[in-house]
C-alpha cells in the first residue's frame, strides 16, 4: 500500500502542474491603470467594507442596517442595485454632490452610511472619492465605502449577492 501511493502522487503532481499551466495561459498580462485625482484610492483602507461583510450587515435587523447610498450612474442604478439602497447622485458631478447632501440632511452625523458605485474598476471610479469627502466635510463620522474591485456586476451580482432592478 505504501508504494501504491506513488503513482497517485505522480498523478496529483502532474494534475497540479497542468492546472497551474492552464491558469497561466488563460490569464493575460494585467493592464495596470493609474489612479486619477479624486479616485476611490483616496479613501482610507480602514473605511472600506468588503462585499461579504456588507451582505452580512444587510441580513441584520432593520435598525442595525446602514444607510446604503449609490453615488454613481443613475442608469446603472436602474439596471441593478443593492436592495434597500438609495440613489444619491453621481459623486463626480456638483449636482450629484448636492443631491447627496440633500439625501443625508435629515440623518444624525453618527448614522452608519455605506457608499457604493461599481461603475468601473476601483482605481478608476470618479464618484466614490468626492462623495466620501463630501460626507466627511459635512461631519459624518461613520461612513464606509463598499470595495468593488472591478464593478458591481463582477464583484456583487456575479457572486450571488442580492440585487434588484428599478421598475
Amino acid at each position, binding site marked *: 500500500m505504501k508504494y501504491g501511493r506513488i503513482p497517485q502522487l505522480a498523478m496529483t503532481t502532474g494534475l497540479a502542474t497542468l492546472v497551474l499551466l492552464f491558469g497561466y495561459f488563460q490569464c493575460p498580462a494585467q493592464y495596470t491603470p493609474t489612479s486619477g485625482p479624486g479616485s476611490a484610492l483616496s479613501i482610507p483602507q480602514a473605511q472600506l467594507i468588503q462585499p461579504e461583510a456588507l451582505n452580512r450587515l444587510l441580513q441584520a435587523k432593520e435598525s442595525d442596517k446602514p444607510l446604503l447610498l449609490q453615488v454613481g*450612474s443613475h442608469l446603472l442604478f436602474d439596471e441593478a442595485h443593492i436592495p434597500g439602497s438609495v440613489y444619491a447622485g453621481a459623486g463626480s458631478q456638483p449636482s450629484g454632490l448636492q443631491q447627496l447632501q440633500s439625501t443625508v440632511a435629515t440623518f444624525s452625523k453618527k448614522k452608519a452610511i455605506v457608499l457604493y458605485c461599481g461603475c468601473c474598476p476601483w482605481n478608476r471610479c470618479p464618484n466614490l472619492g468626492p462623495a466620501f469627502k463630501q460626507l466627511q466635510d459635512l461631519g459624518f463620522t461613520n461612513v464606509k465605502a463598499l470595495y468593488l474591485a472591478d464593478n458591481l456586476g463582477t464583484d456583487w451580482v456575479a457572486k450571488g449577492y442580492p440585487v434588484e432592478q428599478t421598475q
Partner: protein
Amino acid sequence: MPTIWAPIGSPRAIRLNKPNSGAIARKATQGLRGRQMPPFAVFRFALAVLFLAACSTAGEAQSAFAAKSLVHKLAPQFVRPDLDNKRLDLKAYRGKVVLLNFWATWCVPCQVEMPSFVVWQRRYGPRGLQIIGISMDDDPALAREAYRKLKLNYPVAMGDVKLGDLYGGVLGLPMTFLIDRHGKIRAEFQGETDLNRIEKQVQLLVSTIEAPRSVDYRSTRAQPGTAR
C-alpha cells in the same frame, strides 16, 4: 415590485465555494478509487475537462459574467436613433464585423479606449469593420459633447436599461462585444482590456471575407439569457 436577479456566477462555481466542497471532493475521489479506475484515467479525465474549459473560454470572456456570456450567440437586435438622429439598426450591419462598445463620459477607461477605436474605424473600416458606440450616460448632452470632442467617426446611440438587459446586464464599463459578419458575438471584453488583444481579434475577423449567411435576428428574442 422589484425583480430579483438570479446570480450570474455559474452553479458549478457556487458549488465549489461551499464550505463542504472538500468533503464532496473526497467522496468523489473515494468513489473513483473504489471502482479501480485504470491507471492515469483521472489524469486523462482532467485533461479532457481542461480542454473543454479552454474551449469554452476561447471567446475572451474572462470576467465572472462568463457564465452568462453571450459569446457564440447571435447579437441581440436593436434599433434606435443615434446622436445625429439617424436610424441605427444593428441588422443593417449584417455582413460587417461590428465592435459594439458600451461607454460613458464618466468612465475613464472608456476614454482611454475610444481614440483607438477612431483609428481602427479608419484603418479597418474599408475591410468591413463597423464600430458602434452605446453611451450609458444619464444625460445625452454629455455624450454629444464627448462625441464632438473625441471626433468619433462611428455612430453612437444612447443606451438604457432595456438595452443593458438585452446584452446580459451592462453593470460596469467599458463593455465591448465583437460581432462577426454573421451577427454572432465572437468575443466579449469587460473592464480595462489590453487594446492589442482586442485589435488582434478585430484583425482576425475582418480578414474573414466570406459572404454572410442569412441570419434571423428575431430568433434572438427567444434565446434564454438575452432578455430577463
